[in-house]
């Protein structure tokens, strides 16, 4: 019967194209300038990604404080919004679209700035007389702009450091956290207890699937340059990357080899659960963000937790104390017709010292301004001071924004997986291919 047959073909086609239909959206256009009266009563829509009840309460409390200072501006906060929803809303605009958006990832800043999806904040910043360099640490300014366009500001931040099991250190006779990678290697081996083809305890999980142990987070300690002056990938030309990958692969070998480590990794609980391998004592050291401190307290781990900056290369010992920085960003939708009022909210959230401090206290995140980092009002675990110092360190750095999101980091990460497993034996050739792929992808996206 020809009709049902066609009908089936059509169904197949429709099914395949349902996916394509999602891609066939229309473009929006910027509202064009900020002409709204900043003193007129107005309601702003603020989309953010925080979703846990305590987090949402913290956002609401922050907005309530803003309302006290700006009673004519009402803010409707919408929690638990993902980046994909933000992208669609920024593209489509309309009355239901947000005026102010925040995102947990810094990877999309390149697209938001270059496409004009988020408004250029420079005129607002200039008008308000804010000195960015005196207000924010350099790394945080780096991940909130792209190609000279500042379309976002940092709204709290993350700093990455080293967590260590103080009890395990004491048992192994180690008195202080390692400051250089060669010290780290010795400590990691000393803490490792082998048991047959597995481990009773591992000093450190060096493979790149070891949660936050990513190439980007590690490479920060070698002070990398991701792109040269022409915007071309520098992963093959900057020796920082080769040094980091060489160190990592050597440590993999020293701790028992890739296969043995991977098998052991299979016994780990998930990163965000109570069975995290650092909580259970399966690993004695962990590279992680400042949030782990609160998580170890919540999990009531049965040992004393120590915190320190990540080590640095032996020939850069003077840089000890730095680390990888990232964080939440906030910007104004170009489609918003209330940009002057929206700027009042963004300015308050990002630059008002008391607001930043209160928000950091509530969310247990790192404050994103110099003044907030030095504020005596910070009520955080004393060990949290380590992350504040990392955030303030002049050599702390981040992964720069790119026109195609975090694609270049994924490409580097994929190379890391191949190299650590031995599938890619030639480091130099592999990095050159990785750089070429990054350049091809970026050229395609421009």
């Amino acid at each position, binding site marked *: 019967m020809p009709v049902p047959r066609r009908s089936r073909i059509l169904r197949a086609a429709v099914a395949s*194209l349902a996916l394509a239909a999602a891609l066939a959206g229309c473009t929006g256009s910027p509202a064009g300038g900020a002409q709204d009266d900043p003193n007129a009563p107005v309601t702003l829509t603020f989309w953010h990604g925080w979703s846990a009840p305590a987090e949402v309460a913290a956002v609401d409390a922050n907005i309530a404080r803003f309302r006290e200072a700006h009673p004519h501006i009402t803010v409707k906060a919408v929690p638990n919004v993902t980046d994909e929803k933000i992208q669609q809303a920024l593209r489509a605009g309309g009355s239901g679209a947000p005026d102010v958006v925040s995102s947990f990832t810094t990877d999309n800043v390149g697209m938001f700035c270059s496409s004009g999806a988020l408004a250029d904040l420079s005129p607002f910043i200039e008008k308000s007389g804010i000195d960015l360099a005196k207000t924010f640490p350099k790394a945080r300014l780096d991940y909130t702009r792209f190609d000279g366009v500042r379309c976002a500001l940092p709204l709290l931040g993350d700093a990455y450091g080293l967590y260590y099991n103080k009890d395990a250190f004491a048992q192994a006779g180690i008195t202080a956290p390692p400051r250089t990678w060669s010290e780290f290697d010795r400590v990691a081996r000393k803490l490792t207890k082998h048991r047959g083809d597995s481990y009773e305890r591992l000093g450190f999980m060096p493979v790149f699937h070891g949660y936050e142990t990513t190439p980007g987070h590690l490479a920060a300690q070698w002070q990398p340059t991701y792109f040269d002056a022409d915007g071309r990938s520098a992963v093959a030309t900057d020796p920082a990357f080769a040094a980091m990958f060489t160190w990592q692969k050597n440590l993999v070998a020293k701790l028992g080899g890739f296969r043995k480590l991977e098998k052991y990794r*299979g016994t780990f609980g998930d990163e965000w659960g109570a069975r995290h391998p650092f909580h259970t004592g399966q690993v004695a050291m962990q590279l992680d963000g400042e949030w782990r401190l609160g998580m170890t307290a919540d999990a009531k781990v049965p040992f004393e937790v120590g915190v320190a900056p990540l080590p640095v290369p032996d020939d850069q010992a003077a840089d000890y104390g730095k680390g990888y920085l*990232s964080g939440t960003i906030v910007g104004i939708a170009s489609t918003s017709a209330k940009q002057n009022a929206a700027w009042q909210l963004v300015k308050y959230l990002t630059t008002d010292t008391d607001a930043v401090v209160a928000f950091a206290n509530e969310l247990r995140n790192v404050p994103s301004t110099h003044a907030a980092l030095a504020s005596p009002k910070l009520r955080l675990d004393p060990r949290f001071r380590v992350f504040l110092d990392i955030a303030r360190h002049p050599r702390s750095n981040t992964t720069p924004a790119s026109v195609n999101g*975090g694609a270049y980091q*994924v490409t580097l990460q994929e190379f890391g997986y191949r190299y650590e497993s031995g599938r890619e034996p030639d480091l130099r050739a592999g990095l050159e291919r990785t750089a070429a792929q990054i350049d091809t992808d970026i050229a395609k996206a421009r």
Partner: protein
Amino acid sequence: MTTRTRGALRTAAFLSPWLVGFGLFFAYPLAATAYFSLTHYDGFRQPVFNGLENWSYVLTDYPAFWPAMGNTLWLVVVMVSCRVVFGLGVGLLVTRIKRGAGVFRTLFYLPYLAPPVAATLAFVFLLNPGTGPVNSLLEGAGLPAPGWFNDPDWSKPALTALAVWGVGDLMVIFMAALLDVPRERYEAAELDGASAWQRLRYVTLPAISPVVLFAVVTGVIQAMQYYTQPLVAGKVASGAIGGSGRQFRPGYPEDSTLTLPQLVHDLGFQRFDYGSACVVALVLFALSMVFAALLMRRGGPLGAGG
């Protein structure tokens, strides 16, 4: 207005719901996808025509495309075949059971009702090479214990096992088709001395071939759209569940679970390259058409009029 025109308008009016649906959900998306595949389009700025640049990029410069294509074809051939064979086997089994048939039918059907994410999570935990009970049993029996979702050679077979576990949908339609085969045909075949295999080959299969065709075609379409299970399995097995803004590319381990629909999402929503995402969507569409045409061709093993 002539009678002929009135008749044509009446026909169009009756067809209009279908025409509207076809236009909105098929013709327009297809045309738009084809158009965007020839443009540089980031989702924010106006699309700019760039000829075949996206096609050239996806087919020659995008390293994830060919592994994803290979995996998708593997799943279409192996996973669909396994599901149909197991579905038919279970259908044959439950139609022959005399006592407790209802219990067995329910037991075989229940896994199909499990939400895909929950079922995948359960399989990843059961097949965990370090802590899963399956490998403990295998090791206890002195058998080799594979890495399952952590081993590129075993990840697709593990996904196939998951798909076969949820074969209850096919079991139901095969069961209905098997119960519909006239008993007289089996009696006649038995009188002619046909063996059990010959009865299956020459009586059962020809009688249920339209249902087999339906199972294969819908299975191929599902395999073409396979997204959730490999994504969840890859994320959980790799440990990259997400949450700190860390980048994740699907396909763990070693691109072995990467599928074409995952690339559509990766290109479109992670890299803002809607043009290239449309290329992958069109490749998926073309593949669906090719498979449907092959399966339903006149004279083929499953085609009508063969």
